């Protein structure tokens, strides 16, 4: 059998290596271009112990996002944010030692052609890509192009995804498998959805790729609980609400540190 770690791309290798030490993975999200000095948030995320960072490229019609990330996108676009600008700003950054994963809607990927888009990501130092409106059965045209450019295309799995399709998603996903914890849009929730545990358990049955739970994870308690099922968490709306409320990089660093701590505590517990 081939060694999955050697066959994997850089994002996946990084996440596997960290997971294999027993660490709970943390991937915070920021909307690119949300403030003039938005890249400072990336530094704060890295300093708080992020294992990967998701950078949203804002789209005018984010059909899978709740109000918080919609507002963040609108704010960024109103400031003049664009794919080109955000990637240019990323290119100017020193290496944070944390893989960057872009996320956006398929229209922006297609706009200048998938090849040009993936090449631009690569030049900006981005290693992975999440496209929430590109389900696995439509992904053929992007998978090869992304792979050729060295971009790991992350696929999403949902609580209603049937098991055979879950196997296909897990097999074709690169970097990690993004487990959508609930039937809904992004946004903070009072509790971790009950569907999260079953979904991650079903994904685990078919892959040993890292599995990150996202959508609705907003508090240390929820992160701790998510960690019981998955390899780690994606935290988006809880970060962006704070940013929209005026929180600076230091505030976010403190918030993420509480999540980091929760994940670390959970992994010390006997399982």
């Amino acid at each position, binding site marked *: 059998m081939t060694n999955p770690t050697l066959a994997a791309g850089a994002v996946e290798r990084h996440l596997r290596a960290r997971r294999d030490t027993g660490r709970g993975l943390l991937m915070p999200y920021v909307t690119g271009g949300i403030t003039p000095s938005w890249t400072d948030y990336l530094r704060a995320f890295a300093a708080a112990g992020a294992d990967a960072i998701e950078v949203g490229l804002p*789209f*005018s*019609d*984010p*059909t*899978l*996002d*709740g109000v918080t990330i*919609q507002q963040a996108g*609108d704010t960024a*676009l109103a400031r003049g944010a*664009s*794919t*080109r600008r955000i990637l240019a700003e990323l290119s100017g950054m020193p290496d944070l030692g944390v893989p960057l994963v872009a996320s956006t*809607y*398929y*229209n*922006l990927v*297609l*706009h*200048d052609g998938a090849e040009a888009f993936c090449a631009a990501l690569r030049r900006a130092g981005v290693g992975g890509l999440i496209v*929430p*409106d*590109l*389900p*696995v*059965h*439509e992904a053929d045209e992007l998978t090869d192009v992304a792979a050729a450019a060295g971009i790991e295309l992350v*696929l*999403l*799995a*949902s*609580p*209603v*995804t*049937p098991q055979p399709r879950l196997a296909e*998603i897990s097999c074709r996903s690169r970097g990690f498998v993004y487990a*959508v914890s609930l*039937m*809904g*849009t992004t946004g903070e929730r009072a509790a971790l959805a009950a569907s999260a545990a079953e979904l991650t358990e079903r994904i685990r049955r078919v892959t040993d790729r890292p599995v990150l739970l996202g959508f609705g994870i907003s508090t240390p308690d929820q992160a701790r609980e998510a960690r019981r099922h998955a390899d780690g968490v994606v935290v988006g709306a809880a970060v962006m609400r704070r940013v929209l409320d005026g929180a600076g990089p230091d505030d976010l660093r403190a918030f993420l540190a509480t999540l980091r701590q929760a994940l670390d505590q959970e992994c010390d517990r006997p399982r």
Partner: protein
Amino acid sequence: MRDVLPWCEPVLLDGTMGEPRARGRFGEYGGRYAPESLVEVCREVDEAFREAWADPGFRGALARLLAVHAGRPTPLTPAGRLSEALGVRLYLKREDLTHTGSHKINNVLGQALLATRMGRRRLIAETGAGQHGVATATAAALLGLEATVFMGERDIERQALNVFRMRMLGAEVVPVTAGSRTLKDATSEAMRHWVGATGDSHYCVGSVVGPDPYPWMVREFQRVIGDEARGQCAAELRTGVPDYVVACVGGGSNAAGTFAGFADTPARLVGVEAEGGAGAARGRLGVMHGCRSLFLQDDDGQITQAHSIAAGLDYPGVGPEHAHLRDLGRARYVTVTDDEAVGAAVRLARTEGIVPALESAHALAWVIRAAGGGDLPAGSTVLMTLSGRGDKDVSTLKELL
């Protein structure tokens, strides 16, 4: 004249406007670009629709509802005085005479019946002009379902009468404050809501847009316009088939339903878009609301806002099958301005005694502009779908006239 490509000879391809190819494709357009959480429900709708459409029992039940509730068949009206003035022979397919006042009821009765067959108890819909919302509220009341209708705040202001009608029919109307506060944003919001409601709700999409199977399914439910008109033309016209078939295009459902009845004839098909919402005439390849099609976008790939006096045409994209018909040269897409549409509405009122919806007035405006020229030679026979009546637009018109 702007936007008008030279005519190609109509391409008669076998299977044009038949079932889409594998994976819901019309040429390179269409598909199911839905978030993973909606993929399974799209598959369920597809399966249920295929079964129902092949079931004479379902077809019979729908035909009966269309007859006894919606008032089908609708007449074909020769527009005598206007024809004389324009030098063409113009016939109007009178969707304005259906119950609720527009073609939207054809699609909604089909989807509502399908929803009950699937065991759903609630309909979700987006609406621009409010016609689709009213039709959805009506069908829900008729079949004992709940209805939730998403509508942009701007449209709620300009279509107040329809908002009241929906509420009177027992529907919940949810104002949408995002983005341009019109149809595109209402559609996005309806999709977001659907993700969390797939278990008990059916998303009743109002035009030939959205993820597969919607563009195909909605066209099939609207095909009744074209099929009826084909039979009526055969009885009424010396030539049997009109030379031109014209309809307005927002998402494109009344046009698709009309064209479907004539795709295999030599009739030239013309879709008329609003100048400010010309997805087919000026859009660029993209993906939005679940399908690959043509959308108005800026240089960064952001979808731009449409602007039309007709709320039902205020959509920056077009259904994938229209994009395909355009590429094939089988149909041609042209645009008219707000002023031309208003002028056409007044002219129809004064010559034929019919106040059309501002959407439908766009189709007429092109006929008026083109009649007698190279694009619509004198003496041609024209079938135009009058998609709706103008009651909902009287307050808009009152401000202008």
